């Protein structure tokens, strides 16, 4: 059985069920790197140029781990666009080239280009090219692709119930669903999935908020068409897929009465985040909003303090509101 290595980083958090099903259906075994640890981070920092963003460095760490195994292929797609007229970011577009330039003993790469903004035909060709490494049957490749898409939808449906994509993937893989969390606050949390849902990169911001008694609402729980609709109120279309999703989600969250506040988790040195964080900050006027910038230097202590302070403020604000509504003379 052929083996395909897959780094647990970047679009793993958005597409893993699809990828995995596709390769499994074609008779390949998928070897996933372990969850991000301090070692992954150190190795990534070692390999990637200093100026790049934290999630890319971590991705390099995952690639390094996979290089130790005896793999037939390493799957590092070039993700240019996943929808028409939009991009992810320039670094995603250069990922396979950066990896080739940085590692010397790589297994053969499957560096399929995912570029939907060009013609769908091109993408299909890329897909068949990948599939042919495992089977000659075009029909089988197509079926595996469609099956993968179904599985992804199923996984997304799990996430929509209030799980992070990382948790949803675990559940999809057969882990038990987690119990509910006690909460008195509801916070909308935004950020690129590959930093937000990686517990090491984000220092588990979501877990921390839940422990502090917050229900967390994530972009994956919002209906896609509504998000697009809200995002399209911007005077110029935002050409970064994730950026547009964040802006649209923020606008929806602002209108939802049950949401007490919004947190945007941005990565230092992330190009789109430097603009999107700013845009949201300027547009969100009716809800408390906090921009958290994280990178490999972020310490737990400082982060906890900021999250606690934000929650305390939301709680005091709510109490204030209740007190304001009480009649003055009982």
């Amino acid at each position: 059985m052929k083996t395909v290595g897959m780094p647990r980083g970047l679009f793993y958090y958005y597409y893993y069920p699809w990828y995995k099903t596709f390769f499994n259906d074609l008779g390949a075994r998928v070897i996933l790197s372990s969850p991000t640890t301090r070692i992954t981070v150190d190795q990534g920092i070692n390999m990637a140029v200093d100026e790049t963003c934290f999630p890319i460095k971590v991705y390099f760490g995952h690639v390094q781990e996979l290089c130790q195994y005896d793999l037939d292929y390493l799957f590092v797609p070039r993700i240019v666009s996943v929808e028409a007229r939009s991009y992810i970011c320039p670094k995603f577009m250069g990922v396979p080239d950066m990896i080739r330039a940085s590692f010397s003993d790589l297994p053969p790469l499957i560096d399929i280009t995912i570029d939907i903004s060009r013609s769908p035909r091109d993408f299909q060709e890329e897909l068949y090219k990948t599939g042919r490494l495992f089977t000659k049957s075009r029909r089988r490749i197509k079926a595996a692709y469609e099956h993968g898409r179904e599985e992804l939808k199923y996984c997304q449906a799990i996430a929509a119930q209030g799980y992070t994509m990382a948790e949803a993937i675990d559940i999809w893989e057969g882990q038990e669903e987690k119990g509910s969390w006690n909460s008195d606050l509801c916070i909308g949390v935004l950020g690129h999935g590959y930093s937000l849902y990686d517990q090491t990169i984000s220092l588990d911001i979501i877990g921390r908020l839940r422990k502090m008694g917050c229900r967390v609402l994530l972009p994956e729980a919002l209906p896609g068409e509504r998000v697009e609709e809200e995002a399209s109120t911007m005077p110029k279309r935002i050409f970064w897929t994730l950026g547009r999703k964040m802006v649209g989600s923020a606008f929806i969250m602002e209108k939802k009465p049950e949401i007490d506040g919004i947190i945007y988790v941005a990565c230092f040195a992330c190009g789109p985040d430097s603009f999107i964080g700013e845009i949201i900050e300027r547009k969100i006027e009716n809800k408390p909003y906090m921009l958290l910038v994280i990178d490999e230097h972020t310490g737990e202590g400082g982060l906890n303090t900021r999250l606690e302070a934000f929650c305390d403020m939301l709680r005091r604000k709510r109490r204030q509101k209740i007190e304001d509504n009480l009649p003055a003379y009982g």
Partner: protein
Amino acid sequence: MKITYPHMGNACIAIEAMLQKLKLEVIPPPPISKKTLEIGTKHCPEFACMPLKITMGNFIEALDLGADTILMAGGWGPCRFGYYAQVERDILADLGYKFDMVILEAPDSRVSELFRQLQALGQNVSIVEAFKALKFAWYKLQVVEELEKKLAYVHPRALDKRKAENIYDLALEKIKATQDKEEIDKLFHTCLASLDQIALRAEEPLRIGLVGEIYTVLEPMANYNLIRSLGRLNVEVDNSIYISDWLNDHLLGGLVKKSHRRQLLKCAAPYLNYFVGGHGLETVGSTVIYARQSYDGVIHLGPLTCMPEIVAQSVLKRVSSEEGIPCMTLYFDEHAGVAGIQTRLEAFTDMLKRKKARRAAIH
């Protein structure tokens, strides 16, 4: 209407010419100074790239001088530049400025579309006049770039560097001020002739190729006057991008000039095989070309956190070792110090000089 625009190297000469020919009252932003960058930095997101901060500073300084309309270019990603205008408009509006912003959207529009946009911008100008305005601006740009290239040749070889700089600076100032074609031609030829009379050193200079993000390459205030500093160290700098190339490839659809983009892409392909926005691909392709033309080295510039150039930088180390050309990457932001950059430039040219001498000794 009082219109203003952002600075980028000598582009102001062409832009101003065009706007004036469109019968507009132009309020040019004051030349970029430390203050410009300070103002821009104060109002821009912290980890945004530096060109955003400088152009923001330009706009604020120009609006304070009474401008009420801003001309800006756009784009459709994935580089952040495509969203500059929107972010800047929001920030300026929040600061309480009242103004219009005219955004020329680049790659999506066709040339005819561009003329239409320009005509609409002008005050009662016909399509013919709009075309003439553009043609005149283009002509001026060509003249300026020819002089830039001439200085690039003379400066590193000149015995009296300051004289060469003065001749060029003065000619540029005069060309900027006149809108008369004959006068421009006269100034152009006088300048060429005076530069030709400068006494040159006998020794052939080192040759370095300059690659990277267009704004940091072309705007001396963004790169601490890098080209001049190198010229003063007797290094000839070949600039891989000129404004006219960019306009030709991106705004005018390759109409006016023969483009060498295809060759660039071909050379980049083994190392970087896809467009990554901005000038990332051009950076890699140009470096390969410089290596094959036996340049002594390549200096790679970009604003700190520039996404396309980070991809290029990651790939350049492989280009450098496989093509055998020394490369140095320099990033710029509002914190970069001039001393550190000067030391790096000196050390880099020293290294190249000694390498070259050793090669010569072996042969």
